């Protein structure tokens, strides 16, 4: 019976694929690799690796503690490598930080005001909800890689020319 090995990528070991162009513009495929992007990122930069109109997927290098953040809509994260703890606080007045209609992640000034909701410890492949109206911060003892599903906001960094195969 065949024994299979599932190949995941990591900051330490990843292999980028290939693009063979027959009759097209390679830029149309916006081809990048999340581990490569995170390797060259500063901690907690939110670098877009995919964009569909206002929606984005951001790659985040998690290392140490992040600032506190919140959002006026649900966001989600998937841990691609490492271990990350997410700490949550239910904001007393979320509208004052991220008013309804405000898109994307919003960074808090200082500590959040509200009730502590708890923590979630994530390992590779784990997905967490970052619920609307809650403040959250990430903490990673070693460099880790997150994907975040959100909407383009003030903190989203777009640098396609630097990260994409051309």
């Amino acid at each position, binding site marked *: 019976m065949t024994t299979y090995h599932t190949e995941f990528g990591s900051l330490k070991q990843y*292999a*980028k694929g290939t693009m063979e162009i027959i009759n097209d513009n390679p830029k149309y495929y916006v081809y990048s*690799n999340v581990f490569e992007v995170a390797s060259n990122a500063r901690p907690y930069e939110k670098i877009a690796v995919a964009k569909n109109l206002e929606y984005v997927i951001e790659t985040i290098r998690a290392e140490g503690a992040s600032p506190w953040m919140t959002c006026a809509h649900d966001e989600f994260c998937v841990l691609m490598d490492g271990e990350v703890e997410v700490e*949550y606080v239910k904001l007393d007045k979320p509208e004052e930080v991220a008013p309804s209609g405000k898109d994307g992640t919003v960074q808090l000034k200082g500590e959040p005001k509200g009730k502590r909701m708890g923590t979630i410890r994530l390992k590779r492949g*784990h997905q967490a909800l970052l619920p609307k109206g809650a403040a959250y911060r990430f903490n990673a003892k070693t460099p880790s890689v997150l994907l975040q599903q959100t909407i383009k906001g003030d903190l989203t960094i777009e640098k396609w020319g630097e990260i994409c195969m051309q």
Partner: protein
Amino acid sequence: MNAPAEIKLPEKIAGYKTFTLGEFTFSRDEYFVTVTWPAKGQRQSHTMSADAFLRAIMRDVAWGFFYGLVNFDAVFGTRNLYGKVELFAGRYNEAIHGAGLSYVETFESPKAMAKFKEILSDWVNAGFDPFAAPAETGNTVFGEKNGSNLEAIERFRVATKRMPGLEGDSPLRDDSNGFAVNRAFADVSQEEPEIKAERGFEKELHAFNLFKYLSRSDVTWNPSVTSVCRQSLFCPTTEEYILPIIHGNDRVEWFVQLSDEITWEVSDRETGRPRARLTMKAGDVAAMPADIRHQGFAKKRSMLLVWENATPDLPKRYERGDLKPWPVDF
């Protein structure tokens, strides 16, 4: 020489019923499916492997005709008009369409869906699962009619409102609800996230092991939603062998390769002329532009995150040229 315009098909071939939908006819024998349609006063026909046809029609049914074009192969397929559906033969094949031999007919979606389900019910033999990898389902698809497999073909795409496992939302996968770890993912960690919720917030903090969830998928090439951010849908899926359809986009979609490797052959949506070939490895991200068709090849079962934008008016905005077919300029 083409067949005459009026043809009389036998009611059954090798025990399989023959079907008509509008001007299309569908028949199958031990090995093949044949589709015919009217063209230039005669009948034009096209033959596919029964295996390939049934895997394709299964996805079309399960996905409610999906987004854009579902090409069963280079000749036959469907185009979702969202409420109505076009069946086409040769319309997106440069040679057939150029020769004036293509045919398109529009149906109310429920009518076409009902006929496709009838075909599946009759043509899928006992033991054949159109969602399974060939190594798992063998060659029971071939031969004379031999029973049915309604359990396999009546699976539906999992509908998630926010995230699986939340109260009132779609379930997670485990041995207890019939989702065993697939043979190709036996080495995937089954450990769940550690959640420490303060009193009163037990239902608001939520996380799950997405890779465990995917390792327990009992189907291939069948995305299901695992997170919803307004119209942004994460639709991960597990892939092995060949994507049974050639998907023609009516919007930009994105792929994030979560594990292993998939090769994508990309061609022009209208003509089928080859444009590019991408081999994506774990961690790779790529867009599929709105004016292409693509088919994937996975030599080992892999985890793929398909990212869709479900904004309702997108196809019309692309058709009108309001949006460029590629997602970003740089």
